[in-house]
């Protein structure tokens, strides 16, 4: 029993964090949003180059051959930076579903981002920038190449997700992939991404609380602010081990994988909801503005909280596992 990461895993994640802090500032993120692209191709290449995108791609396909434990901290770091585009879909689902196919190299080199619509979504995120879309058909997984999108523009709350409606999801190529495994991968990667977002939102709120003064002192010196943030931190920090454990259960395909993934996503969603709410309240009116960076992270969280199954959906799945089905 050993519940920790290897030095290699930690160092890879730290390296990614350093790169993102230096190169992918909130200003650059804002630019991606305001440009309407919902994607940053240059960053995408950088992530490919570092091996981030190919961590879960088998070595035989030119990837790093890692498992979800190797990957989870990386997704968390991408969440901390609110990296736009289909990172969760490409790194987790694309890597798993396309292994051994001719499309795997495009995941590795960053040339073909992958997105997914496996739950019957009405609006598909990232389909404008991802030439490959995983869809579900009668319980099987198929790949659409160059999907035809509706011309209608769909305004999503998160400027880094670019919603589209697919006009036709038939005619894809059948893949040898497990639908349940992929939806669990989507939920788990979202959970890790949300964990990163939550940490970032609390960090932004902490900076503001140290800086902003009212009544002659920094607002962070007031107990109301201290306790609000402490309670949010509590919720976020107790989701963390559940997310890491789910990565292990996924990597080892344990019988509890579904339960553990659902626990992770439920706690991560609730944690992010609380972190966003608390961070906004600490900011007051300034947090309610477009010009405050906090909004970029809150909106990403609000988009991901219901994605891949809401907290309630996953709570009920845990209930079925723990208490038996109703």
């Amino acid at each position, binding site marked *: 029993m050993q519940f920790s990461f290897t030095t290699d895993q930690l160092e890879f994640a730290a390296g990614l964090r350093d790169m993102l802090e230096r190169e992918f500032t909130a200003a650059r993120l804002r630019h991606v949003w305001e440009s309407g692209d919902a994607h940053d191709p240059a960053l995408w290449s950088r992530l490919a180059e570092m091996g981030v995108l190919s961590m879960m791609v088998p070595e035989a396909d030119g990837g790093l051959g890692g498992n979800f434990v190797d990957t989870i901290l990386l997704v968390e770091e991408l969440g901390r930076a609110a990296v736009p585009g289909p990172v969760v879909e490409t790194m987790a689902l694309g890597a798993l579903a396309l292994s051994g196919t001719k499309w795997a190299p495009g995941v590795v080199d960053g040339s073909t981002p992958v997105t997914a619509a496996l739950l019957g979504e009405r609006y598909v995120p990232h389909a404008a920038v991802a030439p490959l879309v995983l869809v579900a058909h009668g319980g099987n997984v198929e790949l659409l190449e160059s999907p035809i999108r509706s011309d209608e523009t769909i305004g999503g709350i998160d400027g880094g997700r670019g919603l589209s409606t697919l006009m036709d999801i038939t005619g894809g190529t059948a893949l040898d992939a497990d639908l349940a495994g992929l939806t669990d991968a989507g939920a788990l990667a979202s959970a890790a991404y949300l964990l990163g977002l939550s940490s970032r939102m609390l960090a932004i709120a902490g900076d503001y609380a140290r800086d902003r003064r009212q009544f002659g002192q920094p607002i962070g010196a007031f107990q109301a602010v201290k306790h609000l943030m402490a309670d949010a931190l509590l919720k976020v920090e107790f989701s963390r081990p559940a997310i890491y454990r789910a990565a292990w259960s996924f990597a080892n395909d344990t019988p509890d994988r579904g339960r553990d993934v659902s626990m992770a996503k439920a706690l991560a969603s609730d944690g992010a909801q609380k972190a966003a709410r608390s961070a906004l309240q600490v900011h007051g009116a300034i947090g309610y503005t477009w010009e405050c960076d906090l909004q970029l992270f809150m909106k990403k969280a609000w988009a991901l909280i219901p*994605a891949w199954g809401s907290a309630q959906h996953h709570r009920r799945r845990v209930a079925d596992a723990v208490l038996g089905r109703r």
Partner: protein
Amino acid sequence: MDLRETPEEAAFRAEARAWLAANVPTEPLPSFDTAEGFALHREWEAKLYEAGWSAVSWPVEYGGRGLDYLLWLIFEEEYWRSGAPGRVSQNGIFLLGPTIIEVGTEEQKARFLPAMASSKEVWAQAWSEPDAGSDMASIRSKGTLSDDGTEWILNGQKIWASRAVWADWCFGIFRTDPESSRHKGLTFILVPLDTPGVTVRPIAQLDGDTGFAEIFFDDVHVPVENTLGGVGRGWNVAMATAGFERGVSLRSPARFNVAVERLIELWVAIGDPDDDTMRDAVTDLWMQAEGYRLHTYMTVTKLLEGGTVGSESSLNKIFWSEMDLRAHELALQLLGPEAERMDGPFESWVDGFLFSLSGPIYAGTNEVQRNIIADRVLNLPRA
């Protein structure tokens, strides 16, 4: 105690309902935080005014109907139930108007109230400053009397001024005694936004709309007649306004009753009727909205019987803002991934969610309200 509607009340309700049914726009207007929407809302308010529904609790001579607050509550119920547009005149009619009626001169009443009621003049509020948010007493914007004593010369900056982007006037407090500090030496002054030296910089909100603005004052001259409630009495006048705002007029109960009804409809339309958790949560919200309605009726009866609304009005503000946020969180929970879309069929819920997030912040953060309750209602010691 008699909780039945009197014949007079019932007749008034029927009259209001009939007029609204015949006149409320069938399509929702665009947000009043856009140029187009602002103009359309102003038009709607003019129509309301023409028919005598704009400010029913005001005296007749200033454009109201001279009705008591109970009838006003009934009108509000019918108004929100009819799906009528939000009130772009909110700052004027429900906040500044009652203050002018209470402390204004006869000239001020005649000059400002009818134009306010008809929305010929729409008002922005200008309370906060960059360094005076929760700590409102640290206001630094200055008002200096001109040498001849006929004008205020205003300098400084206000922020989070709602409606300021397209409004005609603003009201706020200014430090008119340069030697003063905190709550003293402040004066409540009314300022036309087209006065030379006034610059309005729109601030985009979470949803991109510009519902508030910064207002810069650079040697802005306004007549001393624009002083409301006496020189140096600005804090008291502002607190009276804010007290009334939080206590009764800012958020009449009906909009929450209606929001909960809409939530129930949404649940019936797309939710699982056998889900006890959602059922209990919706029931809790229904009870909260109903409790808030009852609480308001108690408060208004007290006012009508000669009582006053004190610091306990802070209770209201926390209550409705948290209730409203909770209602929208539940709606988003029902909508699931649909809630990600900002411009789809459920737009009003997503917009409403974003707006509800501002509730615990504006009109005095809920943290400040809890301090007020603790200090003035529970009589706990000041820090």
